[in-house]
């Protein structure tokens, strides 16, 4: 734990986050130099670093950051393009800033001066001797500029204590401002709620203060409001627009005139310079590229979407859940009715509620590519630090996962990737000696499998060392000396707290912290970890994560008097338990399904059902990861739309159940947690055999 009372430490943590944001934005800017949001993100991070840095005594850092901020301000104002040379300097500067924060005494001063020089070359600014690092006051930048500001507060801004008039007053105090109130959203007077804000404002402001000063005015409302701040730059405008803006001619007149003007393509065709077909083709290419750019933007997380508070999504999900339960009741009532019309309406409602359910779930889903993207820099930097040549490849970035889960996966994946780079992948010489290509490979992939999303991190390094893991485990008394363990079980030991086989502790890994954190995080997400490794050929760690859906399609079964639900997507088939198999064997219970042996678990016994068993027992075959397991039940009742209700704190450690659901008749059924149930069954079976 860090001491939150130490202001310097608080600042350090904040700065680390800002730097991470900055880096992500920079890397993405390299690919999409025109993305305004990315540019704003980078600039805001720099701005905050500079501002807070000065307050917490990081003067040198603030001074240095100031220059980078200036460079990005120029980019924002369209005075220069974010080319790759600038991004390179910015990335290196970002690392320099981190140095200035983490160990200001040991930082390389020449490097700082060199970066400032490069920056000055980029911006073309005659900034003179750059090494001195004094912060230029903002007003020195200030030639008067004109800005077009559109401000529409959130409808509930007034209820939250924001007074938009004060913000307008602040703007007026900054220079000469023309304020126009937009009333188009104002409802008829009888519908007006005096607590809501329906107004928006257009402000044209001429001020000597920089754009950041205008942004500061809106600092507390920017996330919830519609806010655009654009420089008014007459040169960039078409003549018609300026004329229309000045009111010299009506905008319609301009449009008319433009409409009579021939388009470039038509003119070229008329001249016989090019055929019409070629023009169409070129236009098609243009449209295509435009679509691609738009699609690429859509992948960027949240930046150009609507922001909705998470609670509202939870509310939506709850209500959809209630709808599904109500529908189940309706369906049960209608089942006994002969009225075809009611039946058809019920089916219609079922279709709609299913669609609504899928949409509501989809809103929470984010492609995992947003997470994978963060690791590009991690691998790039780590491989440089360790002088290893490593390439990172990815697949399945479009696989979607719940947003909260994606956030919690970051740390575990960082640990695993670090481990792969540090322990797994060998240096180039060693690789060549082993007949492998000198460049190491790490592959991240994600895919859906039944109820799970599988995320795998695979490297082609030296693989896990069985003997060393075993020796270490015996030394730490995690296993009995000479105990027989499968590879899978042995490899699971690396997730034990304090377990590290690394001979030397490096700055990256080997301290034995990390992998147990991975395990704990994945456990808390109700996920699984599988490790496979081949000596000399590499290691693959696969994380299996539940889709955390609030509503699933389930299979309803009966065991004794209790009813239970299992996720339908995990179910492979249902078979009858042959009477001759229903004899206690000395070993495990196995069922022969078309030639392959499938172990089965008797739920009656696990749940200690007192009622006599049904004469014909059924086996539901489910797949868990790569394994198949049968669950013996009394009766299979059918499929069921299952709204997952979480269990109370009191039952939090009953791992066999992931939740409960309400059936159409109002009774409760427990939802089986397949993964944990199978693990439980495997420990249960041997114990029973012993007794």
């Amino acid at each position, binding site marked *: 734990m860090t001491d939150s*009372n130490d202001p310097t430490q608080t600042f350090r943590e*904040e700065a680390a986050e800002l730097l991470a944001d900055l880096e992500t934005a920079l890397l993405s800017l390299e690919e999409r130099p025109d993305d305004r949001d990315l540019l704003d993100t980078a600039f805001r991070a720099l701005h905050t670093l500079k501002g807070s840095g000065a307050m917490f005594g990081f003067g040198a850092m603030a001074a240095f950051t100031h220059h980078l901020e200036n460079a990005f301000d120029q980019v924002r104002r369209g005075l220069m393009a974010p080319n790759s040379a600038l991004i390179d300097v910015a990335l290196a500067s970002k690392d320099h800033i981190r140095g200035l924060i983490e160990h200001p005494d040991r930082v390389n001063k020449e490097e700082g001066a060199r970066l400032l020089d490069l920056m000055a070359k980029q911006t073309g600014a005659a900034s003179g001797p750059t090494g001195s690092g004094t912060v230029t006051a903002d007003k020195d930048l200030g030639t008067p500029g004109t800005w077009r500001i559109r401000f529409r507060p959130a409808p509930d801004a*007034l*209820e939250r*204590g*924001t*007074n938009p008039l004060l913000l307008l007053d602040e703007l007026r105090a900054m220079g000469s401002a023309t304020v126009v109130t937009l009333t188009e959203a104002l409802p008829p007077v009888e519908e007006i709620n005096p607590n809501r804000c329906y107004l928006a404002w257009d402000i044209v402001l001429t001020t000597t203060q920089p754009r950041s000063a205008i942004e500061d005015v809106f600092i*507390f409302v920017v996330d*919830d409001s519609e806010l655009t701040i654009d420089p008014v730059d007459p040169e960039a405008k078409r003549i018609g627009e300026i004329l229309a803006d000045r009111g010299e001619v009506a905008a319609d007149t301009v449009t008319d005139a433009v409409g009579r003007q021939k388009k470039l393509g038509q003119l070229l065709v008329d001249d016989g310079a090019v055929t019409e077909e070629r023009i169409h083709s070129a236009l098609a290419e243009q449209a295509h590229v435009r679509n691609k750019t738009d699609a690429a933007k859509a992948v960027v997380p949240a930046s150009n979407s609507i922001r909705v508070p998470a609670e509202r999504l939870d509310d939506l999900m709850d209500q959809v859940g209630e709808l599904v339960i109500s529908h189940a009741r309706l369906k049960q009532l209608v089942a006994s009715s002969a009225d075809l019309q009611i039946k058809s309406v019920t089916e219609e409602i079922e279709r709609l509620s299913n669609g609504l359910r899928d949409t509501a779930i989809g809103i929470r889903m984010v492609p995992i590519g947003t997470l994978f993207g963060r690791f590009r820099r991690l691998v790039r930097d780590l491989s440089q630090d360790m002088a290893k040549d490593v390439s990172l490849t990815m697949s399945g970035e479009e696989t979607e996962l719940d947003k909260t889960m994606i956030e919690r996966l970051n740390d575990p994946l960082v640990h695993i990737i670090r481990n792969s780079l540090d322990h797994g992948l060998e240096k180039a010489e060693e690789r060549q000696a082993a007949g492998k290509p000198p460049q190491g490979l790490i592959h991240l992939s994600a895919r859906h499998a039944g109820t799970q999303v599988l995320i795998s991190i695979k490297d082609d390094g030296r693989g896990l060392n069985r003997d060393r893991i075993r020796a270490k485990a015996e030394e730490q008394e995690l296993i009995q000396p000479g105990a027989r363990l499968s590879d899978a079980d042995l490899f699971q030991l690396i997730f034990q707290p304090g377990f590290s086989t690394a001979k030397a502790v490096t700055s990256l890994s080997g301290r034995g912290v990390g992998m147990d954190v991975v395990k704990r995080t994945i456990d808390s997400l109700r996920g699984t970890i599988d490790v496979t490794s081949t000596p000399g050929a590499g290691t693959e760690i696969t994380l299996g994560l539940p889709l955390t859906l609030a509503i699933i399609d389930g299979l309803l079964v009966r065991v004794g008097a209790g009813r239970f639900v299992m996720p339908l997507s995990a179910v492979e088939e249902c078979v009858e338990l042959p009477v001759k198999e229903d004899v206690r064997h000395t070993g495990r219970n196995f069922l022969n399904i078309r030639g392959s042996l499938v172990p089965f678990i008797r739920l009656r016994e696990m749940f200690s059902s007192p009622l006599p068993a049904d004469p014909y027992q059924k086996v539901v075959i489910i797949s868990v990861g790569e394994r198949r397991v049968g669950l013996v039940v009394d009766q299979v009742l059918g499929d069921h739309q299952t709204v997952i209700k979480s269990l109370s704190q009191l039952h939090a450690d009953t791992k066999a159940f992931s939740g409960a659901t309400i059936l159409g008749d109002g009774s409760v059924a427990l939802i089986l947690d397949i993964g944990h149930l199978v693990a439980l069954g495997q420990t249960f079976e041997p114990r029973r055999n012993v007794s």
Partner: protein
Amino acid sequence: MTKTILSVDDSASMRLLVKMTLSGAGYDVVEAIDGKDALTKAKAGGVHMVLTDLNMPNMDGLALIRELRCLPAYKGVPIVFLTTESDAGKKNEAKAAGATAWIVKPFQQDQLLGVTRKVLGP
């Protein structure tokens, strides 16, 4: 008219610092030691702005903000929270609960005054 600010913090030194700063600028300051205390004092009326810490015993700042926003008299009253959390989650939660503005601790006195003037007007 002198404006009254309700300052809520479980740390006595923090309350002292806030009181010194705001009284010096001509505001009246009412102090509360946690959310519960604050809610009682807020219900007594006459408060123009609430300045609250987030982490407090009995009733924390988030719960206080939610409770206050349920009171008709506090629908439009600016609520400013102090936060040391660098994680955006807590801040977003407080904003969603209805807070108007925030100040990141540690802050300088003129920052506190700046935000106060910003949400309360001159």
